[in-house]
Each structure stands twice: as structure tokens, then as C-alpha cells.
């Protein structure tokens, strides 16, 4: 376990996180269900978290892992408020299709 940085180049982690982030972007653009869009935002946050942990490990600096900890805190708060907003939207419009939420569109 402790010879990861000798066997795996940092490029592989960069490619993995870029692919995961792009799948999150694809989900946000592709789907119409607001809950799935939320989940894809979580996927993007996790891709960034993984890259920060990888760089923290390769550079020997624990600040990156503390930042990941704070990103998890913010993600938890964001999800609780966001799902409350979704419940509110569903109660008012009986739908969570984001195409129905065009009141602010001119």
C-alpha cells in the first residue's frame, strides 16, 4: 500500500478525475430530472476531491486533505438546502422537470 506513488504516475489520477468530471458535466447537460442533476454535481465535487487527495499524497502536504474535508462539509450543507428547495418546487409545480421552471426566462 505504501508504494503507490512509485508505481502509479500522477497523470493517471489526472485522467481519471478529468473523465469523472466530464461525466458529471454530461449528466448536468443531458438530463432533465433535477435530482439527477444534483447527483451529477456531487460527482463533479468528488472528482475534484480525488484530485486534491492525489496531489496532497504526491507532494507530501496535508493541506490538500484538510481542504477535501471542508469540501465535504460544504457539499453536505449544499445538498440539504438544495433538496429542501426541490421539495418546495415539487410542492408548487408538481414536477421536478427543469424545463417547467422557466418563469425567470425572458
Amino acid at each position: 500500500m505504501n508504494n503507490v506513488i512509485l508505481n502509479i504516475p500522477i497523470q493517471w489520477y489526472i485522467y481519471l478525475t478529468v473523465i469523472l468530471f466530464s461525466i458529471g458535466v454530461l449528466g448536468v447537460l443531458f438530463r432533465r430530472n433535477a435530482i439527477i442533476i444534483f447527483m451529477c454535481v456531487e460527482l463533479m465535487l468528488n472528482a475534484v476531491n480525488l484530485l486534491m487527495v492525489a496531489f496532497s499524497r504526491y507532494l507530501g502536504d496535508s493541506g490538500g486533505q484538510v481542504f477535501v474535508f471542508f469540501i465535504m462539509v460544504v457539499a453536505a450543507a449544499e445538498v440539504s438546502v438544495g433538496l429542501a428547495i426541490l421539495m418546495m418546487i415539487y410542492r408548487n409545480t408538481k414536477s421536478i422537470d427543469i424545463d417547467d421552471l422557466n418563469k425567470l426566462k425572458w
Partner: protein
Amino acid sequence: MPITQYIFFFLTFVAIFSAILVVIDKNPVHSVLYLIVTFFALAGHYLLLNAQFLAAVHIIVYAGAIMVLFLYVIMMLNLNKEIEPHKKNIPKFAAVIASGVFMLCLIALLTNAQKGMLPAAQNENIGLVENLGKVLFREYMLPFEVSSILFLAAMVGAVFLSKKEIN
């Protein structure tokens, strides 16, 4: 090929495959379950990178709390069937092309950022609870306390948003 590379490729395959299934699957409950699989694979990556504390916190917070919250909302709204109406194909093609171009741009940008290996870190125990706790409570004490205020605000906001209107 060393054993760590096998573990890396296995976890990477699981993570990317289930992430694609999150986007493709029509049923929201299946999407949540595939996202939990992705999170477990990412926790395996954290263990591979010797960040045990973050792996445990990741499992507890994401798979234990956030995904359960998603499942509760899906079940409360009774969305566990394929309700998504069929859309036109042009926005879907545009989404696929846009995210594919985005991925290619990021890879082309980052592939020459650092050639070869980074200098190997001397201290490989930075991910353990002991060392991370020392850093967290010495250098990052103020952000830690501020995050508690953030949680309080999020809790008040969630309760306020989801309560019924009185009149």
C-alpha cells in the same frame, strides 16, 4: 505489473462505469444506487492513496448521509418510476459533444503539465487521523469553527424551506 496498478485499474473501471450508468439510467433510484457504487470506488482510491481518515469520512458522509437523503426525497416525491418524457435528440447530441470537447480540452491542457513523476513525498503518513487532526486543529482552526456556523445556517434554511406555509 505491480499489484497496486491492478487495484488502480479495477477501481477506475468500477468508478467510471457506474458513473456513466448514473447518467444513462432512466430510473432515479437506480441512479442513486450506482452513485453509491461510484463513491465506494472513490473510497478505495482514497485508501490506495493512504488517506484512511478521508476514506472513512467519505463513506460515512456520502454513502451514509447524502445518498440516504436523496433516496428519502425520491421516495417522498414518489419518483421511482420512469417519468422522464422523451425529448428531442438535438439537445442530447449537443450535450454529448459539449462534454466530450470539454474532456478533450482538459486532457490536452493537463497532459503536458507535469512530465513524469513528481518528487516522491518523504512523509507517507499524512492521511492518518493523528497527523490530519493536528493540522486541522492548529492551522485550520478558524475555518473549522466557521463551518459549524455554515451548518447551522444550512439547518435553519432547510427547515424553513420545507415547512408548510401557515396562511
